[in-house]
């Protein structure tokens, strides 16, 4: 934890976060005096999700999203916590940078979506062409901007580099996506917000009538994984599987495709409502997270070609189906529990 001054001289506390967007959102709230944790923001903003998007490719591999679409966590969480907020995109890069500078002069701290490849402070080996990395700009300096990257540290960034990162075209073009809070309700209705967030997550996981989203999406992908070595050949199937494991473990998920973070949220909510049923559900979510970890371990064994008999694509698919079944039961139970607890 480190502290630094923002543009208006107010101290800004940097706290290490697991995920970029939830980290930025909770930091924006904390800076304005509402003490709220990262998992809480994740739950209230209905961050948990599953979606398999074969038609959007990042470095020739399909996207498997374990969270809702970029930007929605901030929007939903801010709305449900009764904050007055602004979200903006720009066509003209120059205009986007000018507006950012003006906002910083008024003492605001601003959240931005940027491309991970073009951020100058990211190390060469960590660069991926992914346009959904969220950061906070604290103030302008002589050489550029002072930036807080919640998954990293406090860093300096040149103005040109930041402009490039904000406006680079490609899949999920950020178009200078920028967000900040104007004012925040100092005593938000946490219980109501939690219930809204949980209800929304249940609907997203259970009720979207398309086979690629929610619990049905996990089953869809599981079937695809089982068939993949026959369809694509062993090498290519391994590449796809490695891409999938990246999405589970590597993209700032706090472990196991955000499942541990959601368990932390349910745990916190259980304390808030004083509900034993929610506490049990938190344990169940933690166990689901362990299942996803198992899936990662099996996949890694397949890719390393260790123990060919034990670890096969069928086994990996089975582990995913197991996750799907448990998650379906989890969200059905959660729905029942929500009906019982009252704000």
């Amino acid at each position, binding site marked *: 934890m480190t502290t630094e001054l923002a543009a208006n001289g107010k101290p800004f506390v940097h706290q*290490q*976060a697991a995920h970029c967007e939830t980290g930025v959102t909770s930091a924006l709230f904390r800076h304005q005096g509402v003490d709220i944790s990262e998992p809480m923001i994740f739950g209230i903003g209905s961050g948990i999700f599953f979606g398999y998007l074969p038609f959007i490719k990042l470095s020739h591999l399909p996207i498997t999203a374990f969270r809702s679409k970029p930007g929605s966590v901030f929007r939903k969480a801010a709305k449900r916590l009764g904050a007055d907020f602004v979200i903006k995109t720009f066509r003209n890069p120059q205009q986007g940078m000018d507006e950012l500078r003006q906002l910083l002069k008024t003492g605001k701290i601003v959240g931005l979506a940027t491309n991970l490849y073009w951020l100058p402070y990211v190390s060469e080996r960590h660069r*991926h062409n992914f346009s959904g990395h969220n950061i906070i700009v604290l103030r302008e300096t002589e050489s550029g901007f002072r930036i807080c990257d919640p998954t990293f540290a406090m860093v300096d960034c040149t103005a040109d580099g930041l402009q490039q990162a904000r406006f680079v*075209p490609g899949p999920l073009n950020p178009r200078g996506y920028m967000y900040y809070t104007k004012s925040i309700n100092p005593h938000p209705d946490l219980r109501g917000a939690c219930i809204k967030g949980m209800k929304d997550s249940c609907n997203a996981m259970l009720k979207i009538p398309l086979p690629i989203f929610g619990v049905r999406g996990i089953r869809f992908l599981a079937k695809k994984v089982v068939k993949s070595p026959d369809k694509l050949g062993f090498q290519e199937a391994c590449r796809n599987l490695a891409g999938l494991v990246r999405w589970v473990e590597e993209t700032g998920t706090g*472990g196991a495709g955000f499942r541990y973070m959601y368990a932390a949220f349910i745990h916190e909510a259980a304390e808030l409502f004083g509900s034993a049923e929610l506490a049990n559900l938190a344990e169940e979510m*933690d166990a689901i997270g362990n299942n996803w970890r198992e899936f990662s371990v099996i996949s890694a064994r397949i890719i390393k070609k260790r123990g060919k008999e034990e670890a096969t694509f069928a086994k990996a698919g089975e582990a995913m189906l197991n996750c799907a079944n448990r998650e379906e039961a989890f969200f059905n139970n959660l729905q029942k529990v929500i009906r019982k607890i009252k704000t």
Partner: protein
Amino acid sequence: MKVNEVPQDDVFDYSEGIKKGNYALDDKGKYVMVPSKGWVIDEMINRMAYDEYKAKEEETRKAVLAGRKSPLAYYMELRQMTPEILGKTAGIATFRVKRHLRPEIFTKLKPSVLEAYAKALAITTEELITVPKNPRER
């Protein structure tokens, strides 16, 4: 996951300082954020992705030196772009970008077009017309 189950493997750090946070239960039954040093599985997946970028880059570099592709193709791979993305960044139609990947067409390009590519790829125009003789150290 318990705090002591958070993977703390001593592996090569691909993110170079970006510590990965994991949420885990501590002894008092509360979830806390535990920074992880690394995990063998993460390291393997990262190495695969990184080696793939590197292999593609090296393959393209050799193709350029053999005269099968233009230097533009090499720098496009280097920036992890596709002709669609490069075209949008430079403001040049995708079908033209694809044509410019052929060496005989690339050599006849006007300076203004080269400048647009150089700006989009964040390199100088001199760099754009050649590729490194040796594999890039990184």
